[in-house]
């Protein structure tokens, strides 16, 4: 009888814990929404979503999200241009070209990159990469969008490489063998047969990589110059959605308009990453089938 009761308790815990996971997502959404709505009670939604000035401490304050959104977009786009081709090419090399011993070393190195804390990469950006880019491109400051893009590209690489590599390795061997049987070279088989077959998995990897880039905070706060104006070039200082929250939260009075505005920025980030991850999951499910 005693056994029955303990079993009942543990099974109840197991069932509840599933519920708790759902509850967290709803709680996060709810808390962000609640404080965002407090902003929209006193500040127009249009002015927030379409405003081109982010001036939280001017009189009257302006909370236009466009400069921050464009800042995130510039940095993310720059990072994608670098990390997507590099990531897919490395995944192809690791999956199909490298001999087993080299493959093992390369995969370990990618795992090492994944584990380097972002604040360390930000530090590298301040101490080396920023000054290097400044002298190379004769910029007024090295703390600009490009520095952020380069570092973020590296942060997204492990995600893109490991998921793409899984997708490439997961293509049935018979596909490759059939191609060889028809006289294809290893490259032809890889390019024409394996790569297209793995495309939805690779796409999912790219989406998850982009999700990481948009959500990354410390690196962009440390190296992109923290200037909340509409950027006209990636070589200018700018500021992303994430860096705005991290940089300004400490200075706000809780319950003020500015405080609620930062939650509204958080809500926008939540929605963007939700959509990206949902899409990635759809593509991952397609590969599993």
């Amino acid at each position, binding site marked *: 009888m005693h056994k029955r009761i303990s079993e009942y308790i543990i099974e109840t815990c197991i069932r509840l814990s599933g519920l708790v996971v*759902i509850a967290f997502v709803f709680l996060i959404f709810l*808390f962000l929404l609640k404080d965002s709505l407090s902003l929209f009670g006193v500040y127009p939604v249009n002015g927030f979503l379409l405003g081109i000035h982010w001036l939280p401490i001017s009189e009257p304050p302006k909370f236009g999200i466009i400069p921050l959104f464009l800042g995130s977009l510039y940095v993310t786009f720059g990072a994608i241009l670098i990390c997507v081709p590099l990531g897919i090419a490395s995944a192809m090399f690791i999956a199909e070209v490298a001999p087993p011993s080299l493959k093992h070393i390369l995969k370990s190195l990618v795992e090492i990159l994944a584990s380097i804390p972002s*604040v360390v990469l930000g530090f590298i950006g301040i101490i080396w990469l920023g000054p290097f880019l400044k002298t190379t491109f004769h910029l007024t400051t090295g703390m600009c969008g490009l520095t952020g893009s380069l570092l973020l590209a590296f942060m997204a*690489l492990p995600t893109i490489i490991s998921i793409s590599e899984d997708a490439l390795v997961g293509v049935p061997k018979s596909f490759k063998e059939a191609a060889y049987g028809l006289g294809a070279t290893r490259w032809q088989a890889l390019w024409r047969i394996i790569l297209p077959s793995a495309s939805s998995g690779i796409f999912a990897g790219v989406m998850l990589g982009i999700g990481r880039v948009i959500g990354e905070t410390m690196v962009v706060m440390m190296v992109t110059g923290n200037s909340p104006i509409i950027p006209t070039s990636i070589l200018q200082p700018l500021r992303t959605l994430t860096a705005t929250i991290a940089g300004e939260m400490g200075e706000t009075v809780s319950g003020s308009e500015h405080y609620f505005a930062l939650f509204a920025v*958080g809500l926008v980030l939540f929605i963007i990453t939700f959509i990206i991850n949902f899409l990635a999951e759809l593509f991952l499910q397609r590969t599993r089938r």
Partner: protein
Amino acid sequence: MSTARGRQKAAFFILGFATLLVVLPIILTILYIVKNGFSAISWEFIAQSPRNGMRQGGIFPAIVGTIVLIIGTMIFSLPLGILSAIYLVEYAKDNAFTRLIKLSVVNLSGIPSIVYGLFGFTLFVLFLRLGTSILAGALTLSIMSLPVIITATKEALEAVPYSFREISFSLGATRWQTVRYCVLPYAIPGILTGTVLSLSRAAGETAPILFTVAAFYLPRLPRSVFDQVMVLPYHLYVISTQVPNMPTSISFATAVVLIALVFLMNLVSILLRAHFRKKKQW
């Protein structure tokens, strides 16, 4: 045929070059940090408190703070993560509720770390009145680590052959008995590996602890879970951006200690995996 071979050679060369462009900066970055930071690392640096506006002395409180925070995160996230994964793999039926849980896990894993910071601040620091404290920080990091732990545990449970469960059921065991005696013992290695890995990520995170626990400068050890603490990643952020005239050797040395801590945890996870793989018998 020879053009096809030539094309293959060129293509493989390009792929190899791209891989080099990825791998070389990783190696150079690590070497650069270690080379510049190693000379500043001493017993004094590791075991003493910072002095003179953090420009002298050591980082002992930040090391302790980080470790305390990791342990706190483990206490909350490990049971919850493992139980949810057990639910998903062993109990859940394929229905809308289960799909909602899975979607929630995917969504949690994609939420930016700074949004966790915001959430932790409103829920734990303000709403539950925990204040800026170890407890609030550990709870925030726990929710962030949850999806990784659930995914790793799920994979470990799914890797246990289904026949193990069938035999157990056929002997009249209940579902929980089956999970407890026939599935969990064989899934432990995978669970441990994934958990240690997720905690090493949490140890390097800065954004979620910015407003929930991290202290700018607090050169003493915490007395209770309601204390603030200095934390390594935040300390590195502070000394490399907020403190003027900071000797860079101290920043480098702090980066070395932080990387060493994270790598050490990764190493533990790799060793665990190797150790258990040797014992695997099916």
